[in-house]
């Protein structure tokens, strides 16, 4: 569990420092990917998380498709 104090500290960082933290975490996660158990499969699109905009785009097109059919 992430300590509240750590989150508070991160919040105090300026924009540039926050980007550095993101890059650091990205590197850490990339390293972790190499340590996954043999046979594990990681898909870039998994888990699939969509923004409200993405969801409304798909819903709208489904409706248009239904109306045109």
């Amino acid at each position, binding site marked *: 569990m992430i300590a509240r104090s750590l989150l508070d500290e991160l919040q105090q960082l300026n924009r540039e420092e926050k980007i550095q933290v993101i890059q650091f975490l990205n590197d850490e996660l990339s390293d972790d990917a190499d340590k996954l158990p043999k046979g594990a499969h990681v898909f*870039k699109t998994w888990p699939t998380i969509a923004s409200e905009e993405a969801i409304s*785009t*798909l819903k709208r*097109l489904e409706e248009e498709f239904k109306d045109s059919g």
Partner: protein
Amino acid sequence: MADKLVFPYVINQRYAPDGRARPFLPISLSNRGRVVQTLALVDSGADMNVLPHDVGSQLGGIWDEQQEIVGLSGIAGEVESRAFVVDLAVGNWPITNLGFAWTREADVPVVLGQISFFSHFKVCFMRSSQQFELEYV
């Protein structure tokens, strides 16, 4: 027409080489006379249906002509995708128009997620008996 269909969890070596059985549903996708039969992962944790690149191409999708979906993410961050609406057939139930996020990735299964597979079907997972039940809404 059956009200409910029950499917077994299956081992899909192509997408899940760990040999673990998962809720893969046999489906038929079609678009303008092109048909693809495949196993699709029923994933209640996925916000959206996902179509791998090869399946979208087989269904006649033209990447540059499909509308871009902004804001789709996966484990590696933002994923480039296009909206693609095709016909879904399960068993002998009525054909359903289903929108997919068509990705550039080929190495993924068809994923049936909350938008909008779960809007059209009620799904009950029964892990203990390695089965899942589907009901057409």
